[in-house]
């Protein structure tokens, strides 16, 4: 049928095949890399109104996470400390530092410091801090090595896959309850036994988190 189609058109199926073999994996790889929380969320580091350093407070001074985030083991919500909490020390330590002017202002006016929230669970996800913290899941598991950060950034993807990884194998992530806030702890622990003894039953059905 050379009078309808020139000879080179015989190669079209091959060309389409080759193009598809190149384009399709590229598109899939691109979406997998650029469109997932590992890329879109990890590394988020907004500028905070006060240059508070977790590295100094937690790592150098060894203040327990729960000194400031005092409700994390009692509530679904891990509270951001009020400026009163800051002033417990800073009315004595570095009390005239210009870096702390906003804290002092907030303390006297009662208007909260406008911290920028970094870790956000979507509104269709139910997440409870206390149930995790009281069953040997350390802060570091979801927030990364906060104690080494001068300025906090989003360290873990916090994707659904990230949650499920731990819900499927909690024994790999669990640690002794009293070491939950020891962020740099790296000891041996019988996770299987703890999961059994503490009756840890992380749900995997949709309604565990999507209530």
């Amino acid at each position, binding site marked *: *049928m050379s009078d*309808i*189609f020139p000879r080179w058109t*015989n190669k079209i199926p091959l060309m389409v095949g080759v193009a598809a073999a190149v384009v399709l994996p590229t598109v899939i790889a691109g979406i*997998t890399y650029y*469109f*997932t*929380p*590992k890329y879109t969320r990890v590394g988020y580091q907004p500028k905070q109104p006060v240059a508070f350093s977790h590295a100094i407070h937690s790592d150098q001074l060894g203040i327990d996470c729960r000194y400031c985030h005092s409700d994390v083991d009692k509530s679904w919500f891990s509270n951001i400390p009020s400026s009163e909490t800051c002033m417990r020390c800073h009315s004595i330590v570095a009390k005239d530092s210009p870096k702390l002017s906003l804290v002092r202002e907030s303390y006297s006016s009662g208007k909260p410091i406008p911290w920028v929230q970094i870790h956000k669970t979507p509104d269709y996800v139910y997440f409870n801090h206390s149930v995790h913290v009281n069953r040997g899941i350390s802060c570091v598991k979801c927030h990364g090595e906060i104690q080494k950060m001068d300025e906090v950034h989003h360290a873990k993807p916090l*994707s*659904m*896959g990230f949650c*499920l*990884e731990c819900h499927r194998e909690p024994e790999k992530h669990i640690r002794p309850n009293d070491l939950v806030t020891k962020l740099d702890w790296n000891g041996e622990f019988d996770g299987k036994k703890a999961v059994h003894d503490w009756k840890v039953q992380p749900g995997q059905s949709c309604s565990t988190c999507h209530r």
Partner: protein
Amino acid sequence: MASPGKSAAVKAPEPPAELVREPLVLNNRPLGWITDAIAGVCEKPMPVWWWPAFIISVGGMITMFSLIAYLVSTGVGVWGLNQPADWAWDITNFVFWIGIGHAGTLISAVLFLLRQKWRTSVNRAAEAMTIFAVACAGIFPVFHTGRVWFALLPGYLFPAPNANEIWPQFRSPLLWDVFAVSTYGTVSLLFWYVGLIPDLATLRDRAKGWLRRFFYGLFSLGWTGSNRHWSNYEKAYLLLAGLSTPLVLSVHSIVSFDFAVSVVPGWHTTIFPPYFVAGAIFSGFGMVLTLLIPLRSLFKLEDVITLRHVELMCKVLLATGSIVGYAYGMEFFIAWYGGSPYELYAFKNRAFGPYWWSYWAMISCNVISPHFFWFKKLRTSVVFVWIVSIFVNIGMWFERFVIIVTSLHRDYLPSSWGYFTPSWVDVMTFVGSFGLFMTLFLLFIRFLPVIAISEVKGVTPQADPHHPLGGAKGHH
């Protein structure tokens, strides 16, 4: 083929009179007439009735797509379904359309393997109908998911690695259904297309304008009719027939699992797979007759789609309709014999509960109407057959409605009983799906040969070189 001179000299022995089969193409039509008659349908301008029919169908199709846009932008609440009947017209329409598709596969694959030569006159249109019906069927389960964009993401409907690290529930027949229906759609489309290639080449060779030549040439894939082409073609056709044959049984079996695997009284029965398959073939042949009876007279194809074809399809309706009737009876018997009060209640409620009208509509259309076809006189009256075929379509829609809605609206807990009423969006979406179906079918008539030209030629008497007419009148 024998030379014309030889046929006069050698006479084939005449078979005994009572064994003579009615020919599949009447009036000793020569091969050239067959090509002209069938290719002519899509070469000449469409008759006057085609345009109003097409405009009405497109109107229906646009209505359906607009209402789907309304559904997606607003939510599934625009349909009337709600607790306790979470499935209603959506799944009814899905099963209705997917069932209609079954005649195409049965005719094209099973009858091909069983060497039923009469299939050649009806298989092309039946396969086209199958594909269009599957397209209509697919719309309903996809859009009843509500946030339909999730259906496209990996991990929800189709298993693929994804950032959520979830997989669909492999133990759910709803997932098997995704595979069953998409496999069915793909294989049907391939089968239809492979069968079309020789005819597309015929149309290409007859084409006048460059546009037709280009498109028919493109899709006929350089077919020249050489021996090698035919040999490859027939092997491919046989393989596809072999692949499609299990699908005739599997697709509707799996559709029935959507219900039978659950524990809802009225759904949880082992008879469902064969009962659904029989019902699907029943409804499919009903739709084939509804479409082909007008088609053969409007395009003067009575010599190719003969009364014998109509009669044979009526016999299929009779057989499958009887199976369906038996299944209705057996369901009631088992509901009583099984001794489960819930099951028994579900069936009593079907026949005498608030949806009694749908049950008796189903019984009168599906159980009574096919039994007219015990009589040859009625089987060969095309007007009568056409009317009955419409009743079969109506009855089979009601069957799915009865199964789905009457089982759901009253289950174990009387405090949560309810009554489903469709919303206007339900009704118009379903009506619109006929618009989509008919739009596609009218375009098929407009652009493609409605009967498999090359296959019909193969079953004419003159195609047989040993036949007295072989090669003589048939040569063109």
